């Protein structure tokens, strides 16, 4: 028999122990996950977390990051009150003030800039957090500024662009019905366990797995039937090599190509130059593996491609490489087919759940007509995305744009999101007024005039939607810690201080959600009453093939190998309608760079213990990997005379950092991997703010030239 003391110590839920399980979601990583959490709560305090078994998406699992939730929400340096800066920007000297004082100061600071320079000179920016975005965008427009931007400027939208200009819609791989899974830069183990579970199930039912990556990953070890290790930034060449083989060997879907594509002959002629030998030379992949992979992918269908939402985008040729890859869906007839790529309707908060909402109408309601900052530089971005391209923000603040940006309202700004951290910090220093919301006093927040404390997903209720037509409203499992509020409360409460009127937003989050959900058969009340995930009455199961049958939403109504949406920018911006392949260093200003900086630096990559900078200061997470990860190959280590763990210096024209070397057989000679987000070893400080994909404006986190040397002791 167990004693009550034993049960309390083991945190067993029940009436006797007083431990209750309350449901929430993890929002540490991207909104396409947000797994369900069972929070073990006693006396208003979270004691432990576990995945929610009945959750329609995560089915009981949580990743390493989500399992760190308790230490994340109870980090000892959570902001307790609003703060006002009393020292120089960046010095971290701030004093506590009341919310009333904070709201007055924010209103005064923003309205002063508005009065002097006009409303567009106040930029609004949302960091990694997504849940408050529709309300923040609306708030920016209510203020009168067109300039709302976010971390989407460097994340998933490049891939969405590739899909929209090719197929007229976004789509996702249907792993559950595929025979072959082609995982292009598939890092699932450390970023998306759900996909690993699906791919493992595919293998169990006899399916085949092809993985393409620059490094040997856990997926390559545990799941791949064929693994192609590729040089960074050469993915487009490999995709065109596949295409040439598929066409030549009669593996293409002739009917689909004839009936549903535009520009095929031009595409076919273009890929002729990508013979196996050439492709092998460019990509480093052996010729026979290129053949085997193309054959398996094209002949063992249905086949789907994991086109991974961001990492291929982080190259100078990122957008074109995406288009080269995604073109294979059409060439093999795997688009809009069960087990291939299935069109997806955006539902809410960057998630497709199989039914539409009024989110776009809500967030864009009061959008002013005015050019955004940076407009004209990346015309594809301007055409397809309503936000400003945030890579242009520091430049604009520093006086490099058409009109001044003098104030910034940020929610969770990470100074290491953009390349060239020093430039970002210089820009923050140059602002007349800067307000930031966050849970912690981040390096960015230390530059703010006013810092407002916000709470975690455990301390608020919010709408979540999930694939399969599901929606749910969470409830706070604990009250907001200290004096923190939700971001949306802040926008609503600030309106009167700013002298603005928006009846809907003033009523708060629930009223906004009810407006957004109108027509779906759902409401905040019905979702609350259900207490968990429910299917939206308007949700319908998608019937594969129906999108293509109705005509695609492209100028030709077909899949466009020749993207007509790009025709208008060919003359002005040299954007090519075909997915032409260029080298990822085609923008080198000086040919000597390749000699002076002979290694390729890849920053980014997912590690299990953090996302971006988010968990580096959470002790449990940090204990898994205490020092920054800088990985080099065995042969480079030998040449440089570096032993395992010895400090090594990475230098680019932009800067220099030092970290202990991790010598590994997983990375190829000539490549260097540095995980981003560490404060003391800042990968972003090494990157140039001019080395950008001309189509999307995305920074080249995955391919910069660098030099390596053994660090002086």
């Amino acid at each position, binding site marked *: 028999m167990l004693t009550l003391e034993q049960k309390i110590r*083991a945190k*067993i839920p029940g009436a006797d122990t007083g431990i209750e399980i309350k449901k929430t979601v993890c929002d540490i990583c991207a909104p396409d996950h947000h797994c369900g959490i069972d929070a073990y709560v006693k006396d208003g305090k979270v004691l432990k977390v*576990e995945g929610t078994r009945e959750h329609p998406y995560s089915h009981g699992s949580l990743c390493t990051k989500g399992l760190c939730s*308790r230490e994340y929400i109870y980090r000892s340096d959570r902001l307790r009150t609003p703060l006002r800066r009393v020292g120089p920007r960046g010095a971290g000297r701030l004093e506590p003030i009341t919310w009333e004082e904070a709201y007055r100061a924010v209103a005064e600071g923003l309205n002063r800039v508005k009065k002097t320079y006009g409303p567009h000179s106040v930029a609004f920016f949302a960091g990694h957090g997504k849940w408050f975005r529709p309300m923040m965008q609306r708030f920016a427009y209510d203020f009168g500024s067109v300039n709302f931007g976010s971390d989407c400027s460097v994340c998933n939208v490049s891939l969405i662009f590739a899909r929209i200009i090719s197929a007229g819609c976004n789509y996702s791989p249907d792993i559950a019905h595929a025979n072959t899974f082609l995982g292009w830069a598939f890092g699932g183990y*450390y970023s998306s366990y759900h996909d690993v*579970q699906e791919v493992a199930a595919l293998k169990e039912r006899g399916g085949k797995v092809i993985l393409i990556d620059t490094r*040997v990953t856990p997926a390559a070890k545990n799941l791949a039937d064929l693994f192609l290790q590729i040089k960074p930034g050469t993915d487009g060449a490999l995709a065109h090599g596949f295409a040439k083989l598929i066409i030549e060997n009669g593996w293409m879907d002739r009917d689909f190509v004839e009936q549903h594509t535009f520009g095929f002959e031009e595409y076919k002629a273009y890929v002729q130059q990508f013979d196996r030998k050439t492709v092998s030379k460019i990509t480093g992949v052996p010729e026979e593996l290129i053949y085997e992979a193309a054959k398996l992918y094209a002949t063992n269908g249905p086949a789907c491609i994991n086109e991974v939402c961001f990492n291929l985008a982080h190259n100078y040729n990122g957008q074109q490489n995406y288009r080269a890859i995604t073109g294979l869906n059409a060439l093999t007839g795997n688009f809009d087919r069960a087990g291939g790529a299935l069109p997806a309707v955006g539902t809410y908060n960057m998630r497709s759940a199989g039914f539409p909402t009024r989110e776009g109408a809500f967030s864009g309601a009061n959008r002013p007509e005015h050019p955004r900052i940076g407009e004209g530089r990346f015309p594809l971005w301007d055409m397809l995305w309503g936000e400003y391209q945030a890579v242009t923000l520091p430049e604009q603040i520093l006086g490099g744009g058409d009109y001044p940006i003098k104030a910034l309202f940020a929610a969770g700004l990470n100074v290491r999101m953009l390349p060239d951290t020093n430039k970002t910090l210089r820009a923050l220093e140059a602002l007349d007024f800067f307000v930031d919301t966050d849970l912690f006093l981040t390096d960015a927040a230390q530059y703010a005039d006013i810092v407002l404390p916000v709470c975690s997903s455990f301390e608020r209720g919010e709408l979540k939607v999930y694939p399969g037509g599901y929606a749910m409203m969470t409830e706070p499992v604990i009250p907001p810690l200290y004096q923190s509020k939700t971001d949306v409360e802040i926008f609503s409460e600030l309106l009167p201080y700013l002298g603005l009127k928006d009846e809907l937003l003033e009523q708060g989050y629930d009223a906004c959600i009810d407006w957004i959900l109108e027509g779906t058969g759902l409401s905040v009340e019905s979702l609350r009453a259900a207490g968990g995930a429910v299917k939206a009455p308007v949700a319908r199961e998608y019937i594969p093939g129906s999108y293509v049958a109705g005509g695609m939403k492209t100028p030709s109504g077909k899949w466009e190998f020749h993207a007509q949406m790009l025709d208008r920018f060919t003359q002005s911006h040299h954007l090519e309608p075909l997915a032409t392949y260029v080298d990822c260093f085609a923008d080198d200003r000086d040919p000597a760079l390749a000699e002076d900086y002979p290694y390729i630096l890849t920053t980014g990559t997912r590690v299990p213990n953090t996302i971006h900078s988010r968990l580096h200061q959470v002790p449990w*997470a940090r204990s898994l990997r205490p020092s920054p990860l800088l990985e080099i190959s*065995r042969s480079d280590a030998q040449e440089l005379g570096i032993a395992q763990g010895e400090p090594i210096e990475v230098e680019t024209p932009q800067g220099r950092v030092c970290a202990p070397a991790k010598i590994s*057989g997983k990375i190829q000679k000539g490549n260097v991997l540095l995980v981003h987000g560490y404060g003391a070893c800042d990968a972003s400080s090494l990157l140039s703010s001019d080395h950008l994909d001309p189509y999307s404006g995305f920074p080249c986190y995955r391919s910069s030239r660098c030099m390596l040397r053994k660090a002086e002791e």
Partner: protein
Amino acid sequence: MRYYILFHPEKCCACGACAVACMDQNDVDVQHGEKGYRAVYEYEDAGGAMGECTYLSISCRHCADAPCVAGCPTGCLSKEPSTGMTVAERSRCIGCHSCAMACPFGIPRFSAGDGKVLKCDGCFVRLACGLQPACVRACAFGALTCVDEAEFRRLEENHAISAMLRAVNQTG
């Protein structure tokens, strides 16, 4: 009921979810030098082929015939009767480290504070309440599983039969 915590290295990626779940379950204060009872490793053989590596998640094996229990002079360590987990009654520990000497896996550790043994208890209270050990519950990949005696025997038999079949097929 005897339970077994099994590790399947071919499904592991050393993500550390199990290790963090253990810290959460046991309130491990890593900031003050404490460690969880489970750790993950990524072991690369420097002489091996490109990228050849092994992922490991290691904790107490809860051996049936546990050398640590046999080596403990005070009866601090024992097999918990309802679950078969190897547990410590810390009030009886004299900090002699005999268990650590006996353990082939180097599992028992000792508190920097009171010098007494620290080890995984297999979450035997959770097991007795029908819940999985925290580390097993946290593994999204099926690399850690927990089975009862009957299931364990069945798996053992299947394993033996498969090995025999492979041998027969190879020689035949």
